[in-house]
């Protein structure tokens, strides 16, 4: 009954803080799309239960690097990844590793809300059912409820769990997708510009949600919005032309950038 315990634990307020333990680390990660090199060797450590934001101009490779962290680049025919990515000191590109289980541990929320054309309930139940996390209908009900509560959507949808997920508003859909990711109890959640398709109100709700999730999960967020990075993240990484230029505490990056390019970008001189 591992999941049930986990979900009741989630209902309480989590006080976990960044533990200082390295959750994921990348060493000399390069990505090739066919002949062209999109990432030129990235080194990065991501600590447990911290929120790290990737910023940078369009095409700088931040999304590409994000997709390396749960091997979503595998689904693109021409993409090839070299280097090493460790999750809890285990190489995720090791042939013996099961990519399906990796993606259950490292969940992902996409740029455009992409609920399945199924009911709200089925959207959440999809992952737990795939991985056999629950056995009875009652346990499933609990997981669905706790995931939706976690994503701040429960009060809005509890009376219409059988309604199609595609019928929700954009912001609700995105929270549904976050709830869907939470339902499989991932350790790391990757968010690829989760607010870029949303209006300002929906965006602020998602940002509050990210704030609540902080401490329970390791969160990696790609964003175009520098205020958003400043608001939600502990650390910020600045990417430019396929290179990691600077990675530091968020307030350091925004008040005292070390690199000239970072400074130019955050002061709006290019990008």
């Amino acid at each position, binding site marked *: 009954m591992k999941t049930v315990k986990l979900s009741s634990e989630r209902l309480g307020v989590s006080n976990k803080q960044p533990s200082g333990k390295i959750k994921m680390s990348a060493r000399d990660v390069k990505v090739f799309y066919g002949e062209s090199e999109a990432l030129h060797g990235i080194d990065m450590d991501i600590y447990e239960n911290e929120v790290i934001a990737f910023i940078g101009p369009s095409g700088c490779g931040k999304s590409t690097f994000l997709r390396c962290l749960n091997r979503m680049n595998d689904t693109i025919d021409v993409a090839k990844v070299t280097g090493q990515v460790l999750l809890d000191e285990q190489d995720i590109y090791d042939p013996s590793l099961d990519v399906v289980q990796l993606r259950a541990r490292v969940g992902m929320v996409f740029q455009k809300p992409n609920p*399945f054309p199924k009911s709200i309930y089925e959207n959440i139940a999809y992952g737990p059912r*795939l991985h056999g996390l629950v056995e009875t209908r009652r346990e499933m009900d609990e997981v669905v409820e706790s995931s939706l509560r976690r994503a701040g959507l429960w009060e809005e949808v509890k009376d219409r769990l059988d309604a199609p997920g595609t019928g929700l508003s954009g912001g609700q859909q995105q929270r549904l997708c976050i709830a869907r990711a939470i339902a499989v109890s991932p350790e790391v959640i990757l968010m690829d510009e989760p607010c870029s398709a949303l209006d300002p109100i929906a965006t602020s709700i998602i940002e509050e949600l990210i704030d609540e999730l902080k401490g329970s999960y390791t969160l990696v967020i790609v964003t175009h919005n520098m205020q958003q990075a400043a608001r939600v993240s502990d650390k910020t990484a600045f990417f430019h032309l396929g290179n990691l230029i600077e990675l530091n505490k968020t307030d350091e990056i925004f008040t005292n950038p070390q690199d000239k390019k970072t400074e130019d970008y955050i002061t709006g001189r290019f990008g």
Partner: protein
Amino acid sequence: MSNLMLAGVLLMLLALAYQLGLTRSRKLTTDLSGQKVRLHSRPVYHGALVAFWTVVPAFGVFLLWRFIQPGVINQMIIAQLPEAIMAGMTDSDMRVFLRRITHLSSGFGLSDQPQPHELQAAELLSVLQVRGHALMLALMASLAAAGLYFSWQQIHPDLRARNQMERVVKVALIACSSVAILTTIGIVLSMFGEAMRFFAFVNPMDFFFGTTWNPRFQTAGTEGQTGFGMLPLLWGTVMIALIALLVAIPVGLMAAIYMSEYAPSRVRSVAKPIIEVLAGIPTIVYGFFALITVGPFLSSFGATFGLDIRATSALTAGVVMGIMIIPFISSLSDDIITQVPRSLRDGSLGLGATQSETIRKVVLPAALPGIVGAILLAASRAIGETMIVVLAAGNSPVLTANPFEAVSTMTVTIVNQLTGDLDFASPQSLVAFALGLTLFVITLLLNVIALVIVRKYREQYE
């Protein structure tokens, strides 16, 4: 003047009128004092407009005249026939009479000696035809001249020739689509008329619900043996189509899933056209294939299991027809599966689903309405298919549930009833129209349902 020459003259007139319009409008670009004048429309539009007004009304008169003249002339001839002859004529006599004088006047001659009143009428017919033609030419010429003159006169820097041509184009497009629609309606009406004539002989209840198909001529001693019951044929059609779908749905769908989800783009770009070649093979070739290869194979294959499968049977025809409709299902489903947004797949894969789980639980449910539409389209194709069943189904119109037996279908029966030496007014051949109409209604319904489903599916992702 023959019609071909007339067409040539019209074409020349078209070119001439265009040139005239073009030249006049070009001249207008500078006024008397040598100043540049801006035309509202470029000279080509002025030319086209003049050409349009010169040729199109004249051509319209030509079409209308051709359509109306024969009827009018026949009426005139009948009107002058002596009372004594008219009195003894029935409708069919009248038709024969009109055909005879047409032959006489065209110099075709008759097998027997023409009657004096026929000769007289034939002479009148020739005269009327010549006059009618001359009248038509005169009318066309005057219309063309008037059109040319007035539209040429109208050319002016401010004339909105461009906008007017736009309207002409729109009307032409509407006319072309009406041709397609009117043809469909015409086919239905003509089938409907003939089918009604059939139902004058046979009770519709006996036709739609009768279980005996035996449309022979009634002679002494065979009363009560004839039957125009459609059910054995309908059942044969349905059974063969079902067998075809049983073959084509799994194979076509799996092929589509492989093509859209698994195949590398190189394989896909080669394999997909090859599968589609199946759709281009003439159905008569499938018929040979069924008769010579598949039938004997199934027969001997069944024999090894102690099954008695006839070489020409519902099974043979169904299997081969299934192969024929594979590309309809695979190609359409492939397009539909590819249309399912990538974000849905990513969402499922990102939750840790395998590729086949993603296909089964997310992609196929999302694509299902479209796939059902594809299957229904393939089914209506299977129901209307003729050549394969003519050759391979065995042509035995009995009501049987055994797919290893020979059956017959509606299409095969239509062919049988309409070929050979038959009187077109007898129920034996008229029944073909009733069958055709039924078949048309069935496939129409299937197509409508398929289209509705496909359209609903499209809306989901737009």
